[in-house]
């Protein structure tokens, strides 16, 4: 039963060094196999990235990076260097492989990052950030995204290796694999099929099995060295008792990770696009993945990520974050405008904007983004002045997208936007001539060559016989808002067109069901087909009034709130001499601007000229809702449940921190009860008491070696000064009782002193514990109490 015979050291590989020195190091295959298993497991799990990265061309790079990491750690282990050195070797392997694959021009000798690395790295990271932020999974592969994937997976491999091998917690290391797999799972629902899961699970089992085998191997490669007893070789390969304790400890660690990680990762637990849509696995803040996160947010039953804005406009505003105008690629994305961006958002000095400040409609809006994190600033269109921002912001003269640079995001910003719009009226729009396509950037009117037939046909059918652009636009909007189309957040998922791209629009026009992204994209593309330059704006619908009113400089600003349910997309169409005009083709969402109302003719009391922004005004409804006194504007953005959550979280964390203490105390209590219970065989009592004493000794840094007999252990404790006074004879009694219980003939009445009663044994364990405690330093006492080593001891 307990015959754990040690594994045979491989004789064949135990070739001694020929110069007569003792063979200190033996090149056993163990470390290499172990590292190979880790590498294979990580690669298997990484294969599921296929769900979010297009194709397989990235896989060799990832495999190379992982292999480099594992080569490093394996070399460290094979050379019997300390675990920390192995870790560093793995890290070095990762850096070297990344340098060789991606940054070779700036490197020294091809593998060492050289002086120009940062310069080379910057555009790649920016590219990756753009990809993550703007593309819909599966994203197209580019060097930046592959670099980040390699780095992420490489670090995962290093982490897995460290947890599984030096820390000897192979079971826990599965969390790393889970993390790798969860990236595609979270980014794109359904992207991991059963095969992806099976591959990751197989990798996990491989690591478990290999680690079990590896840790069971004799590590004492120097057979003369008697110190091997503390190495893994001396340990039992098959843990029998204490499994529950360790399982509980591992479970506690898991819970701790689950509780601690989300708050530690910004924007994971709340914010506008929480729980994965802004997963920071690529190390860049991503806020508005315009299609998928938007759809996810809409599909989510509850609202979250509340933020507020207060405006002096008579009605709620559309807050625009970014526009998608580059519609010809496989994925829609904002046009690459890095070169043309300008700084200085305090004054957006386009002549037209500045002119509108004088004769257009000027609106002042105060926005508090709370935890919404995105590189693109939310602002009503068209921003002319933005004040109160922190960080560095740039704007694009073509789209007026405002974007943070150098890591600046919208999180926690409070700023004031002065926006302008031309006085817009139906008559004015109707008079617009067909757009001179040459006048605007061609990115706004480009269409791909292989456009689905159905788009062309539908456009022809809807707007073919109209010649004024505004009429065409109205016709398209009317068509999309018509009875044929239904608003559905789920249909695109079920129909498999919950992405971006022209195929999606084709599918949408076939199925005639979708949500704002599909409606707005359809309208934008059909408008282009009809000759009107267009783009898709992504942001928020106006939201709801909070009832609050802010007073700023004598003006009253009505406060609104928006949350995830208001995430929205709408088309903007370009009209000559007028500029960009928003439409609202999505039924049941947002507000159709008056100029775009299907039933022509302004309603009584309305001033169509004031329809500066999409989302027509409601001037007849003055903001009369009383504001609760004392409701500070900032407080509106706070979640009232937060303190409760914080308390619960704190409680949980405290529980996790105290888990080892509680587990150890529980174990001690159990033994105590057992010792005090009547009718228990004396031998059993002695074994229990001895186990408790061994645990106590381990807690105080005096663990019994596997090859150490009870007698040697007791003698060592007595000689080392870890015990003194009455604890020494107490330990002697415990030892004698244990020896009798463990080794004497169970069929015979014990000779010599009768097996001591449980109570006496219990007292002795208390004395030994007190003795250990008296001899220990304060650090050891703390550790013994809060992180008892006996919980993690292998038996």
């Amino acid at each position: 039963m307990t015959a754990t015979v040690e594994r045979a050291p491989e004789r064949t590989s135990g070739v001694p060094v020929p110069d007569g020195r003792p063979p200190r190091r033996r090149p056993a295959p163990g470390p290499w196999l172990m590292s190979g298993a880790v590498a294979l497991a990580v690669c298997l799990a990484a294969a599921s990235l296929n769900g979010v990265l297009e194709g397989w061309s990235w896989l060799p790079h990832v495999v190379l990076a992982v292999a480099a990491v594992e080569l490093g750690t394996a070399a460290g282990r094979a050379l019997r260097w300390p675990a920390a050195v192995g870790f560093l070797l793995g890290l070095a392997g990762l850096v070297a492989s990344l340098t060789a694959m991606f940054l070779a021009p700036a490197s020294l000798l091809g593998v060492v990052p050289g002086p120009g690395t940062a310069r080379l790295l910057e555009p790649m990271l920016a590219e990756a950030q753009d990809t993550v932020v703007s593309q819909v999974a599966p994203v197209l592969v580019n060097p930046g995204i592959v670099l980040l994937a390699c780095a992420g997976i490489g670090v995962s491999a290093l982490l897995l290796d460290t947890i599984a091998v030096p820390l000897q917690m192979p079971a826990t290391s599965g969390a790393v694999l889970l993390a790798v797999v969860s990236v595609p799972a979270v980014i794109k629902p359904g992207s991991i099929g059963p095969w992806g899961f099976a591959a990751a699970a197989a990798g996990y089992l491989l690591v478990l099995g290999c680690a079990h085998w590896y840790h069971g191997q004799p590590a004492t490669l120097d057979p003369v060295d008697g110190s091997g007893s503390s190495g893994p070789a001396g340990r039992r390969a098959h843990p029998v008792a204490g499994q529950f304790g360790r399982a509980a400890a591992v479970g506690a660690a898991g819970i701790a990770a689950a509780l601690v990680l989300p708050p530690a990762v910004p924007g994971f637990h709340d914010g506008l696009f929480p729980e994965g849509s802004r997963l920071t696995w690529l190390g860049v803040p991503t806020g508005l993945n315009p299609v998928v996160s938007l759809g996810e947010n809409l599909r989510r039953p509850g609202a979250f990520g509340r933020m507020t804005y207060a405006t002096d406009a008579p009605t709620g505003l559309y807050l625009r974050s970014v526009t998608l105008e580059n519609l010809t690629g496989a994925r829609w994305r904002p046009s690459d405008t890095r070169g043309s961006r300008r700084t200085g958002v305090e004054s957006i000095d386009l002549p037209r904007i500045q002119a509108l400040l004088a004769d257009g409609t000027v609106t002042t809006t105060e926005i508090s983004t709370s935890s919404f994190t995105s590189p693109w600033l939310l602002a009503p269109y068209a921003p002319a002045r933005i004040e109160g921002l922190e960080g560095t912001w740039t704007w694009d003269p073509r789209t007026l997208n405002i974007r943070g640079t150098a890591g600046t995001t919208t999180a926690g910003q409070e700023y004031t936007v002065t926006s302008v719009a031309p006085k817009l009226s139906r008559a004015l729009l109707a008079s617009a001539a067909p757009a001179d396509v040459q006048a605007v950037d061609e990115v706004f009117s480009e269409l791909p060559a292989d456009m689905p037939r159905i788009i062309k046909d539908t456009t022809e059918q809807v707007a073919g016989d109209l010649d004024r652009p505004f009429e065409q636009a109205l016709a398209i909007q009317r068509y999309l808002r018509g009875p044929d189309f239904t608003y559905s957040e789920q249909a695109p998922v079920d129909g498999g067109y919950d992405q971006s791209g022209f195929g999606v629009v084709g599918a949408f026009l076939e199925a005639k069901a979708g949500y704002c992204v599909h409606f707005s994209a359809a309208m934008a593309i059909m408008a282009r087909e009809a000759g009107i330059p267009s783009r898709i704006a992504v942001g928020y619908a106006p939201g709801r009034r909070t009832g609050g009113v802010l007073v700023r400089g004598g003006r009253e600003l009505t406060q609104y709130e928006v949350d995830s349910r208001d995430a929205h997309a709408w088309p903007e169409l370009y009209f000559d001499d007028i500029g960009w005009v928003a439409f609202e083709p999505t039924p049941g969402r947002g507000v159709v601007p008056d100029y775009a109302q299907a039933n022509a003719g302004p309603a009584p009391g309305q001033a169509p000229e004031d329809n500066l922004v999409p989302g027509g005004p409601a001037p007849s409804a003055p903001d009369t809702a009383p504001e609760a006194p004392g409701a500070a504007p900032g407080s509106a953005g706070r979640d009232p449940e937060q303190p409760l959550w914080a308390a619960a979280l704190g409680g949980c964390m405290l529980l996790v921190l105290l888990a080892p203490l509680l587990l150890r105390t529980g174990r001690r209590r159990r033994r105590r009860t057992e010792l005090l219970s009547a009718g228990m065989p004396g031998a059993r009592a002695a074994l229990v008491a001895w186990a408790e004493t061994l645990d106590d000794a381990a807690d105080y840094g005096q663990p019994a070696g596997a090859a150490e007999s009870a007698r040697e252990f007791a003698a060592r404790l007595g000689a080392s000064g870890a015990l003194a006074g009455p604890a020494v004879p107490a330990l002697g009694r415990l030892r004698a009782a244990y020896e009798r219980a463990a080794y004497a003939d169970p069929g015979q009445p014990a000779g010599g002193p009768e097996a001591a009663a449980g109570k006496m044994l219990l007292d002795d364990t208390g004395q030994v514990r007190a003795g250990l405690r008296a001899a220990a330093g304060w650090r050891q006492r703390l550790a013994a109490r809060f992180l008892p080593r006996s919980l993690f001891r292998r038996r």
Partner: protein
Amino acid sequence: MDSQQHTAWSETPHGSVLSGPPHPDAAGPHAGGQGAAVQEALMPDFHETCERILEAINTVIDGKAEAARLALTVLLAQGHLLLEDVPGVGKTMLAKTLARTIDCSVHRIQFTPDLLPSDVTGVSIYNQDKHTFEFRAGPVFANIVIGDEINRASAKTQSALLECMEERQVTVDGRSYVLADPFMVVATQNPVEMEGTYPLPEAQRDRFMARISMGYPDARAEMDMLGTHQSVSPLSRIRPVAGVDEVRAMIAAVHGVYVAPAVKEYIVALGRATREHPFLRLGASPRALLQLLRAAKAAAALDGRNFVLPDDVASVADAVLAHRLMLDRKAVTAGENASSVLASVLARVPVHGGTHRLSSWPAGDG
């Protein structure tokens, strides 16, 4: 075939023994089946007797308490003892003292290159009066046989003795004669590098339960020795402190010492570890493990216990196993010897005990 001229009787000429003639047929069955209950009753006596014997030996051999204890252990375990060291450190003295303290028959054989097997075992001679062959028992027919400088005899003669040790009987002309009980051979041997020696082959070393290297005494013990030994041999003052029946009972008591399965597992694990050790060409044989177990039982009994601890095993492991292990060439070049390799094995092999079996209680076995 005149064996007498080559056989040197140092103390007791053949036939005149302290407790009467040897009883070749007197070997009764080993009283091992009596179990621990009987042994429990014997224990107080047992310990006392052991102490008496050891004390007596210590008055003669200064500073060699450990060697004396091991010698007694081997006697109680019914094994044979090989004393190996350079001349003049008291090998023969120890053997003789041990024999003297017990009131039993003792023969000494001085091994020389021309000693013949029949000089050890005995010979059949023709009785002209009765017209029959009569067996004249050799010096091996005694309770304790001291084989001095065993490695100076030819291989053939060595084999004769070793066969007796294993078989505990002598076969001459087709007839078997059972040796005395208890029967113990204490052989002394000079290190093989000395001149004029035939080193014992491995297979024959394996017959000895234990090998003890005496080592030089420390300075104080040597001073004492110079004081006490100058006038009269202290050996002459030794009086037997235990009878042969007493020893037999003690051996029976040792036989009844309980060995927990965990201890057997430990012994097996030790054996396997020596066989798999990269420094060892030859590990412990099954016979070696059996002897290790028996020696451990005797050590436990000497310690006053009726059950064996892993510590007992460890305490005799070096004496029992070291002379059977054959070092690999690379171990020799690394400056290792059998004892150091064995120490590393002991430091590595896990000691199993009741703690590990807590989870399987009460299905456990101890």
